[in-house]
């Protein structure tokens, strides 16, 4: 009887260990985290507008009034630049790394002139950019990102149906490209 009790206690200790291991290692192998889903859209370096029904990778516009576009990017070869402009009641951008940790987020009130102009670079690339700032980036917001890969989410708001077209144009004209001098 005592041996059964011992085995049960041992089992419970093992269960606690396994619980911790599963929780800590799960982010590495779910295969359906946000970054994998964005990569699954196969649209590197451009914003891909989501639909209201879940697409092939399960990403959708959850909020009925917000239209989102996603873009996966890599800054291993050079900085990435995000551009968007247009008149929508509200837009916001969030940049995440490949572990879905927020790197930077902003909205139209925190932008210069209400336009999106953001450069994401590694610390070394940022030093280069600061040493000899290119003319084109005079108004840009510079953000440092330690990881090489990530994704960005651009959201725009259509509070009433008549804004749909403006919002669609805003997302369609936005860009997410590698920056070259």
């Amino acid at each position, binding site marked *: 009887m005592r*041996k*059964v009790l*011992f*085995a*049960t206690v*041992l*089992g*419970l*200790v*093992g*269960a*606690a*260990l*396994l*619980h911790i*291991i*599963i*929780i*800590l290692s*799960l*982010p590495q192998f*779910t295969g*359906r*985290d*946000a970054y*994998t*889903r964005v990569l699954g859209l196969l649209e590197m370096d451009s914003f891909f507008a989501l639909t209201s029904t879940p697409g092939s990778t*399960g*990403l959708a516009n*959850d*909020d*009925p*009034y*917000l239209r*989102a576009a*996603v873009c996966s990017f890599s800054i291993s070869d050079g900085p990435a630049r995000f551009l968007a402009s247009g008149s929508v*009641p*509200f837009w*916001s*951008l*969030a*940049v*995440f790394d490949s*572990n*879905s*940790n*927020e790197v*930077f*987020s*902003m*909205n139209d*009130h*925190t932008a210069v002139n209400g336009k999106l102009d953001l450069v994401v670079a590694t610390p070394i690339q940022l030093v280069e950019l600061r040493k000899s700032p290119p003319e084109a980036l005079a108004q840009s917001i510079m953000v440092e990102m330690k990881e090489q890969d990530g994704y960005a*989410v651009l*959201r725009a*708001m259509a*509070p*009433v149906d008549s804004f749909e077209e403006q919002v669609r144009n805003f997302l369609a004209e936005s860009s997410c490209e590698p920056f070259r001098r």
Partner: protein
Amino acid sequence: MFRIPFLVALALAIAFGGGIASAVWALKATVGFGSIAIGPWVAFPEAQTINADPYAKAHRARAGELLYGGAEGLMFSAQTDDKGQKLQATCSYDVTGLTPQARFWTLYAANADGLPLRPGSDLPSALNSWTVLRSENSNFTIHVSPNAQPDNWLAVRHAGTFRLVLTLLDTPTAGSSGLIDLAMPVITKTGCGDA
């Protein structure tokens, strides 16, 4: 004779069964620690950051949702009314009051997995701060009901329980720990069935 193998099997069964079951349960039950609750409304302002706890990180990797950044907004969801009873799709509820300071807010009903309910394009399935009708003191009352209602009606066509999702966009509250003092709308049950 089979005593030792039996004991080993028992220990292994408890370890693997218990470990896996408890991990799955923990990920289903909550989004993680670090929530802020105002009445029935719950939000996780740090779930998308690197400071999120391991449960929040595991949960977001499994759910694969596009979370809101700190400057974008903060999403509150309520699964119960103010008395703590689960929101039932056959019942009617009134959402009354004011939201914390924000440039915009949106409100919609979602199923248990957080996916928005779509009752049909001819029914009002969501409201926002532009379209909501307010009283003189700028408070609002939203009737969440399966039956047609005057003024602000949020139609729910669903079976079982649902949740209400209120997203505050560009809100100073997202980065503030003083959120506890802020007031959120009150959810009261007004009746069930066809009444």
